[in-house]
């Protein structure tokens, strides 16, 4: 049994927030005396990844994903515990690191390759493969400042995957490039894995993680809250994203308390997982803390990239008035006409204050869910349930 390629033991990373220290008497003050605060980006993390495994790291912003990645590629050291990574690490976070706009593609391949730890010889040997993969043969001797951003990323990616790393660390980069190139990158990563390399993907892009990884962990405020098969990890991630964050819980001054905002699947049970075509229900439960004359419910759904997918309210016809202390439940039944991807829904109770104006009474409490759609449908919507067909005369 070989030792794991990545081994983390009780790893913690604590950042000190400094108020800028002044240079006093030429001495290096590592800690300014009073005005510092500490926060833990990663706490007591244990992790082992075997050779050839592919691990997805999920978590919302600030959960510690980037810090973990930085520790894995050695850029920063853990405050406590031990990080051990065996072999050559190629961080795909560094696509195009050291690229200079004035240099040609060819020159940048050598600079970037060296930055990633390849010798001149290795780059020479792989040069043709790199150029071939990037599909920019015609522009290889053009300064990269004339490249489109897609070409830039393609070249950077090609160098990174040419390094034949033992551990490939992948950040959000997969969102770039056109669809065909993305597919090619996925295939290349599969190849790298088949050759025995280990892959770690850190992303909000749940689709990418599901496509690339067998195993997933979920980070929440620096701690590992889930470790297991990737599909379960995705569900756990959506469950964790739905949890209100601290500042939202503290809000008591608003006029109504949020008792629950749920997504119910076809079986009537709360879920974070739907399929295109499912019949589902959003359910909002609130309790008025004071009298609410004209209650209005707003509900919206956004895609993973943050753009609005759907929004609805009953501004024109408020619900019946609520007495202080009274609870109410509102529902929106719908058919899932969404394509594969992650979505966020928010809903809140408002009060009509004028002809077109409302005041929000409950905190907004985002709920995330994942839709498994038909293959070969991309975008946010699935407009047709029946698919493409040919009309015969």
């Amino acid at each position, binding site marked *: 049994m070989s030792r794991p390629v990545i081994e983390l033991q009780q790893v913690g990373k604590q950042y000190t927030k400094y108020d800028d220290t002044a240079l006093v008497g030429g001495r290096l003050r590592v800690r300014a005396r009073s005005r510092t605060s500490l926060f833990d980006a990663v706490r007591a993390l244990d992790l082992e990844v075997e050779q050839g495994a592919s691990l997805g790291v999920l978590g919302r912003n600030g959960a510690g994903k980037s810090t973990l990645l930085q520790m894995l590629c050695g850029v920063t050291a853990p405050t406590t515990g031990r990080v051990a990574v065996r072999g050559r690490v190629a*961080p795909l976070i560094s696509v195009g690191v050291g690229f200079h706009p004035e240099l040609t593609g060819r020159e940048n391949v050598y600079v970037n390759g060296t930055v990633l730890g390849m010798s001149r010889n290795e780059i020479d040997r792989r040069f043709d493969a790199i150029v071939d993969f990037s599909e920019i043969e015609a522009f290889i001797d053009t300064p990269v400042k004339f490249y489109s951003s897609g070409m830039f990323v393609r070249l950077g990616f090609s160098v990174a995957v040419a390094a034949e790393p033992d551990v490939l660390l992948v950040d959000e980069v997969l969102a770039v490039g056109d669809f065909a190139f993305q597919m090619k990158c996925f295939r290349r990563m599969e190849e790298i894995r088949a050759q025995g390399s280990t892959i770690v993907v850190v992303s909000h892009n749940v689709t990418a993680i599901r496509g690339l990884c067998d195993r997933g962990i979920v980070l929440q405020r620096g701690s590992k809250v889930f470790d297991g098969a990737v599909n379960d990890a995705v569900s756990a991630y959506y469950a964790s994203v739905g949890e209100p964050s601290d500042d939202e819980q503290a809000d008591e001054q608003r006029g109504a308390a949020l008792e629950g905002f749920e997504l119910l699947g076809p079986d009537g049970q709360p879920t974070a997982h739907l399929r295109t075509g499912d019949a589902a229900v959003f359910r909002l439960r609130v309790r008025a803390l004071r009298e609410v004359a004209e209650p209005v419910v707003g509900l919206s759904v956004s895609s993973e990239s943050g753009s609005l997918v759907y929004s609805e309210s009953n501004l024109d016809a408020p619900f019946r008035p609520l007495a202080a202390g009274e609870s109410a439940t509102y529902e929106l039944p719908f058919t899932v006409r969404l394509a594969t991807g992650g979505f966020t829904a928010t809903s809140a109770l408002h009060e009509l204050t004028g002809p077109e104006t409302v005041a929000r009474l409950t905190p907004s409490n985002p709920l995330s869910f994942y839709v498994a759609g038909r293959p070969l449908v991309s975008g946010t919507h699935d407009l047709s349930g029946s698919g493409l067909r040919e009309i015969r005369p």
Partner: protein
Amino acid sequence: MLTGPATPVGQLLSELWQRRALLVVLAKKDFYVRYRRTSLGVLWAVGLPVLQAIVLTVVFSHVVRADRLAGHHISYPVFLYAGLVPWTFVASVLPGASTAIVDNLGLVTRVYFPRLLTVLLVVLSGLVPLATGVVILLGLTATLGPGLHLEVLWLVPGTLLVVALVAGFGAALSALHVYSRDVRYVVQAVMTVGFYVTPVIYPLQAAPHGLRTALALVPSAGPVELFRAGTVGADQGWHLAVAASVGWAVAVGAWGLWLQSRRDRVFVDLL
């Protein structure tokens, strides 16, 4: 394999050695990028020091007669140029070296290599103008100066000393700069003063007696004195200046290396 927050000095040096190809490639890149869009290209790297030498020679042999300052028997332009070559290296490289880690943010936050490498990168890029300066100095000494003698070998330790000084101070200052961005301005201020307290435009013996020892202890005085010793002849009391500079280089260099080793992998947290 990296484990703790510190990189032990031995490991730091061996990793630097393993990454020497990166150092060379990045230095070449900086060099080419600097001259890429110019029509004269790399000629500028040689052209500017030559121009400086010509202006100095004309001004100080025909416009201002400053011969008395250096002593009647030697050519003031050569005397001055001998001081300017090492001083220019210090003044043009040290400010960049002391901010090197922060300036290379894009590289340093995404890939690991010993952070000291960024300092050496700046020092390395300064070597081309330094070498050009030395060659021009040799030319001036042979034509306007006392001619080339065996003493010219002093330029070798002189060059090594100035490079070691700047690298040592750069190692220490760049580490401090991560913690306090005042360092950038302190260095700029010190450079302004440094030109006058380093015996560049005057010989050590021109200073009042009480000040002479103090001036000899200025870190940048040693290389200047070695450059003089190799060309127009050394100032009085140059041994002290050289010894002091060697002391500075060793002490500050060791401190800088220690700082780099202790903080190598947590600098990033403050960028």
